[in-house]
């Protein structure tokens, strides 16, 4: 299969959603369990794809470097966020390449960003808390033309749920659950 993407199944799924939108609703969740200091153990919650439950038996650790009060045992929340965006763009790029009948030989997405920690620490008025810019570079090899790869880059980013969540502000709803004892 080209790029190990089953194009026929993808096409069937896309056409199924035109008839039955419920099949396209994917529900996600994670649970971040504090371990010590800045370190947390994250578990993926069961997903739902359409009307069915999908088990996600995955856990991973998040920490901060020593300079930021952690023990540098694992990637930090910013790195997970950037990797989530980069991997999401990558999926769109590979899917798009398969649709365009391009065989990929190499693909690397590098994502970088800069924070002014004065914002998080609140030590200087006007210091920004968020990333003000996120930069990515897609390094690609394969039998596509320059124009095709450029078209793919644009489509992969504009169809990426994670990139578009970051680019367009998302509403964050929260609540507090205080345990007694």
């Amino acid at each position, binding site marked *: *299969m*080209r790029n190990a*993407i*089953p*194009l*026929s*199944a*993808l*096409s*069937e799924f*896309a*056409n*199924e959603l035109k008839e039955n939108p419920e099949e396209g609703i994917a529900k996600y969740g994670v649970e971040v369990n504090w371990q010590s200091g800045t370190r947390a153990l994250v578990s993926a*919650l*069961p997903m*739902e794809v359409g*009307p*069915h*439950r*999908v*088990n*996600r*038996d*995955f856990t991973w650790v998040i920490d901060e470097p020593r300079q930021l009060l952690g023990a540098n045992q694992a990637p930090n929340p910013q790195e997970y966020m950037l990797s989530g965006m980069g991997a999401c763009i990558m999926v769109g790029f590979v*899917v*798009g390449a398969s*649709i*365009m*009948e391009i065989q990929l030989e190499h693909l690397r997405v590098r994502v970088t960003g800069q924070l002014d920690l004065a914002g998080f620490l609140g030590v200087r008025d006007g210091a920004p808390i968020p990333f003000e810019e996120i930069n990515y570079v897609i390094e690609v090899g394969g039998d596509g033309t320059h124009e095709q790869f450029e078209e793919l880059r644009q*489509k992969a980013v504009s*169809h990426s749920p994670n990139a578009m969540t970051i680019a367009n502000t998302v509403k964050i709803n929260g609540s507090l659950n205080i345990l007694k004892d």
Partner: protein
Amino acid sequence: MDKPVQKDNNIRGDEKGKSSLDETKVNWVSDLKRSRQAGPFHGTSKSWTEKSFSTIAVHAGTKDDMATGVVGTPIYQGSTFLLGEDQYKSFEEGHARDRFIYSRYGNPSQWAVQEKLAALEGAESALVFSSGMAAISSTILAMVDRGAHIVASDELYGGTYNFLNGELSSLGMSVSYASPRDFDAIEAAIKPETQILYFESSTNPLLKIVDIEKLVSIAKKYKLRLILDATFTTPLGYRALDLGVDVVVHSASKYLNGHSDLIAGAAIGSRKVIDMIWPRMLNFGGSLDPHACFLLERGLKTLALRMAAHEKAATALAIWLEKHPSVVNVFYPGLESHPDHKLAKSLLNNMGGMVTFEIKGGDEAALKLLNAVTLAKQATSLGGVETLISLPYNTSQSGYTSKMREKMGINSGCVRLSVGVEDPDDLIRDFEMAFSKIS
């Protein structure tokens, strides 16, 4: 001068299974053309929805060979197929299930019997396997992910229990067992990581009929897949997919083939779900040989006839056994005394050929009875044209202690009969003779 290369673009397989791409430019996924179709079927796939079981059993899927005019599907006893551009494309795009490439992937003999099975169950798609356990293991493993949990019947067929109990834990999965009659216990066993409910349409050997509509509603409530082993009831008993079951599995060695002369299995359901199982069949290797497909297809043609004969003989024998002074208890869903008779009457179009009974004198007397009968053959398995007689305590339920068997309701002296299609009067006379010999 070199000859121009002749491209072979012939479609060898299901012509309805098309490429996602055509001449028009595809901008994004929404422009892809391929939609999911029932099948894959070979040639003249008709709609069988308006036809009765006996007609479907004879005709669906069976493909006459137009080159010779021979009536009936030939045996395509080949391992591999000539490849052309269209097949290479099917590989590249991922619809190799719609083409003939290699017999482990698909073969016209398999497709013929698969279409017949799909039509009998009222389904879009079916797969045949080299055994019922190949069908069951491939189907279960297609529907679970790492860390998954399964809720299954606590009266499963021993082979399925061995698979769940012996294999899944080493794959990091777990199983809880609940009574097929206790829906509160089934719901209570469901965990956040549960993905499947696995039950049998009728239990072995006490022939408890599962209330399938209740199971379907639990599966839907918790967003689970429901797999049903319908070996004992067959599609003639009821069509489980119509009632909301996701996949029906069968040991086709039993009633579907009906002649005790092959080992085969089947998984039947929507094209979407069967397409999920197909790659597991390829990976685990449980494909069915073309010659066995031919035997299964031939057996299936008489399914409706045989099931009517099984039911007739089993009913006559069950009624006779119930009146016999040496018999303590008879379990047959067609009898008013059966605990699930009301449910069976509303659910089943055919009560089947399985009759279980308990005789005075316990297992010792039962063993004598087995040796005294002359028509029924002392053998395990079921669903064949010949009557088979066996004792659960030293065959299907031999892994349990006598106390555990009693707890399940399988008392000493329990005899399992798979009533064949012989004349019921002959069977009754044979049992009459056998009982008089041992008393």
